[in-house]
């Protein structure tokens, strides 16, 4: 599902989807008036708390996740002067190195782009009804409970 809208002068797009995230497509954000484009990509890492991880399985309350993501983006677009704000979160099974979440911000200046990007990822981690289960090398599966800032 995709939500796309205009908030003030910002083009806002939010998506929660099982489709792979294509960073190249996201990099076309903004216009020639934007001197800064930040791209944050969260990737599936091969370890957690010292334990080897093989892959991740994401489960979402999709209807609510999409709505909550739209509300995070709306708040962010109202707080900073941006021309483009986009966030995509994956669901389903992701292999090592795959992108689980991407945030693209285009703005006239870098400070606002960085701040807005950081705000969106922190709010996603706090609020989006999405859960992940780690699959380990020994075949065990565990739901991840951590929502700490470096998770």
């Amino acid at each position, binding site marked *: 599902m995709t939500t796309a809208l205009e908030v003030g002068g910002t083009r806002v797009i939010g998506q929660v989807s099982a489709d792979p995230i294509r960073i190249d497509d996201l990099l076309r954000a903004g216009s020639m008036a934007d001197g800064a484009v930040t791209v944050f990509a*969260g990737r599936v890492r091969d370890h957690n708390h010292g334990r080897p991880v093989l892959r991740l399985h*994401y*489960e*979402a*309350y999709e*209807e*609510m*996740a999409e*709505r909550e993501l739209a509300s995070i983006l709306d708040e962010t677009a109202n707080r900073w002067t941006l021309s483009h704000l986009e966030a995509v*979160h994956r669901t389903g099974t992701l292999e090592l190195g795959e992108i*689980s*979440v991407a945030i693209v911000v285009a703005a006239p200046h870098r400070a606002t782009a960085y701040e807005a990007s950081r705000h969106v*990822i922190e709010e*996603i*981690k*706090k*609020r*989006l*009804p*999405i*859960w*992940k*289960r780690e699959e380990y090398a020994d075949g065990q599966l565990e*739901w*991840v*409970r*951590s*929502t700490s800032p470096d*998770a």
Partner: protein
Amino acid sequence: MTVTILLFANHRELASTGSLDLELPADATVREAVRRLRSLPGLASLPAEPTVAVNREYASLDRDLKPGDEVALIPAVAGG
């Protein structure tokens, strides 16, 4: 009245279902719905005071419910 309960992640596995209908008195709150849910066979280990959403928005346990409401128990989230 009847409300729909949604369960996710470890809660869903515990209940062996992601969705069930729950019969409640007309003036029930979310807290009462959770209490009745936990009294069902096998569901006693669901949290007594979970984070919840009503109709896809975070809500308080004291929220009054209406017939047909969608009540989701939200385990600790782990997106990103």
